[in-house]
């Protein structure tokens, strides 16, 4: 249940039997393909999810950076991001386990919509907890979840955002654990979640590995993925961890600054791997953004999907052992990355993925001749944010949007 010093099961006693039950199910169904679980999972990800996703040569980025740049197109997965890999895997596993009900928390709504989709597809009742503030500012995602038949439970406590939604989902789970599966949305939380979610997401890197060898005849020099909680990161890296010649770069949200304001309990970034310290949050020992006393600080990034004070324990371990290089780019670089890919390649990336593209721009000379970047999701969801944030700044890659002036 651990990755070096990281991982573990730091949860209330009431949940331990459920975690052990899940661990058992994970080992049987996922690791040993009992009852053909994995076959069904792969088939559904192909037919319902749209796997495999393409590995595309980015012609204009390759020219711009004078090296071969390939994009892994997770933005083409059903729902618009890699999230479905995990959501469908867990909902299907819950079905195999005989659970009757699915719950999940969501911040900006990406994990909630993926879970609601998977639950609709597999005919499982589903409730999503979401802070009232997030409900009100992410209405399209709330609509999508409702359309898929999920209940959306607004959480009114505190700042009414992700943190409170997690607490409320934990409360639900602690109450209904016997018949309910909690679909955690990233490679975080107590064992076996980090390992299981990684396994569901590992298809990303497995496909890349086959595709790049077919296209370029060899393994890449480097693989770049953004990192928030880290599920697209681990999903992209996992297949390459044994390949010592392949450099792995986890690009975090540098936000507006890397300094923590401890008095305000605020980190104006979400660069956990780059700047965090070890501790326990949401069930696992991992790197965290925390004050000296151990209070978790509020992270901040222009990308809601990276905006989390923790990170997957396996990533902490891979960073600690030097296998993964932690890096980060700031909000401006991410926004420029967003605009650059949209304009040069006709792909509007998620703001999360835009961090990986921002890093490519800044450090491409360090990345070797053959680079793969994971485009973890599409950016339609981010249009309003990007417009708002672009207006405030002077970004070299941004277009004018003067068309509405009249």
């Amino acid at each position, binding site marked *: 249940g651990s990755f070096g*010093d990281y991982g*573990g*099961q*730091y*949860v*209330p*006693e*009431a*949940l*331990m*039997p*459920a975690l052990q039950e899940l661990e058992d199910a994970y080992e049987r169904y996922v690791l040993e393909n009992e009852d053909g679980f994995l076959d069904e999972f792969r088939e559904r990800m192909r037919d319902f999810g749209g796997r495999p996703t393409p590995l595309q040569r980015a012609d204009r980025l390759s020219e711009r950076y004078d090296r071969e740049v390939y994009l892994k197109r997770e933005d083409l997965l059903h729902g618009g991001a890699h999230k479905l890999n995990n959501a469908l895997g867990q909902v299907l596993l819950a079905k195999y386990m005989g659970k009757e009900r699915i719950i999940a928390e969501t911040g900006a709504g990406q994990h909630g919509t993926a879970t609601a989709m998977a639950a609709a597809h597999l005919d499982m009742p589903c409730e999503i907890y979401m802070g009232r503030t997030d409900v009100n500012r992410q209405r399209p995602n709330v609509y999508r979840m409702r359309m898929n038949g999920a209940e959306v439970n607004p959480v009114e*406590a*505190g700042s009414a955002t992700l*943190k409170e939604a*997690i*607490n409320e989902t*934990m*409360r639900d789970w*602690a*109450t*209904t*654990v*016997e018949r309910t599966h909690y679909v955690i949305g990233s490679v975080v939380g107590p064992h076996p979640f980090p390992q299981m979610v990684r396994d569901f997401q590992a298809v990303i890197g497995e496909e890349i590995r086959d595709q790049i060898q077919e296209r370029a005849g060899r393994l890449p020099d480097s693989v770049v993925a953004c990192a928030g909680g880290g599920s697209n990161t681990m999903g992209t890296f996992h297949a390459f961890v044994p390949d010592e010649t392949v450099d792995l770069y986890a690009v975090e949200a540098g936000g507006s600054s890397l300094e923590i304001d401890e008095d305000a*309990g605020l980190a104006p970034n979400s660069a956990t791997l780059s700047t965090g*310290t*070890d*501790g*326990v*949050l*949401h*069930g696992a020992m991992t790197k*965290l953004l*925390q004050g*000296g*006393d*151990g*209070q*978790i600080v509020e992270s901040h990034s222009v990308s809601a999907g990276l905006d989390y004070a923790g990170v997957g324990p396996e990533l902490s371990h891979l960073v600690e052992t030097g296998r993964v290089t932690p890096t980060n780019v700031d909000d401006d670089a991410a926004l420029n990355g967003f605009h650059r890919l949209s304009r040069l390649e006709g792909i509007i990336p998620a703001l999360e993925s835009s961090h990986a593209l921002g890093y490519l721009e800044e450090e491409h000379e360090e990345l070797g001749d053959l680079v793969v970047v994971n485009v973890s999701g599409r950016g339609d969801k981010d249009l309003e944010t990007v417009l708002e944030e672009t207006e405030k700044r002077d970004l070299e890659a941004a277009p004018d949007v003067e068309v509405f002036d009249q």
Partner: protein
Amino acid sequence: MSDATYDSDVEAAIRENHPALITYITAGDPSLEDTKAYVEALDRGGSDLIELGLPFSEPIAEGQTIQAAINRALAAGTTPDGFFELVEDLETEAPLLVMTYYNMILQYGDSEAQRASEEATGQRPRAKPDVRPFVERAAEAGLSGIIVPDLPAEESDPLREACDDNGLDLVFIIAPTTEGERLDSIMSQVSGFAYVQARLGTTGARANVSGATHDSLARLSEYDVPKAVGFGVSKGEHATEIIEAGADGVIVGSALIDIISSSETPGDAVDALEAKAAELKRGARRGADSLTVDPEERPEPEQP
């Protein structure tokens, strides 16, 4: 009730004051000064053990009542150091326990001073967390035990060792889902008392006693350790029912937080807390009395 002596202050407090009342409030809600007055009121009202919450920003095991108290305490600037100073200041008959989340224990001692020195030497903060500074400081401040809601037995070795070394009890929680080998294993390690979670879910005052409570106490009856029941207890009559069902003590928290948050002045809260503690203690005693007088409920006496 018993002449035996105990290694543990905590176990002694329960055994010797049977049926015991254990009360909880969050330190620093709304200020550490007020907490001092509240704790003393609970002590006067008849608490046999008092749990003091050290607030953590992500209290995943708490219901909304205690979460709100924690948020108020954090907003008031409550820190571990302030907490320990409060504990040093308190003079209560009831032994005191600290209830907090594991990360607070891990980080204590990774102090500003230490980090400043590391930064000055250009090192990246090591920050390999260690539980010992917290446990040592707790012992020094006069605490008798520690309860950590997000630390299951499987992860508790480092903390248990540190507690053992420092003469503190590490209290384990027994949930309705705790069964079989795990239950045996945890019950064999009980230190102080077994914190019996009355129902699935989180902390919070409820209108009645869960059926799961009776089931749990029946399941635990074979284990000869003090058992105190918490989660949802709010009234004297709950206390009666729980003690009747075989518990050695009742644990009350959210109902007291409700009094604190709804009182108009700290003075009002002090009086109301003392009265509530007295009500709960009376309720618990009624439960014990009924066990003594009601032949139907009483276990068959052994033939002499």
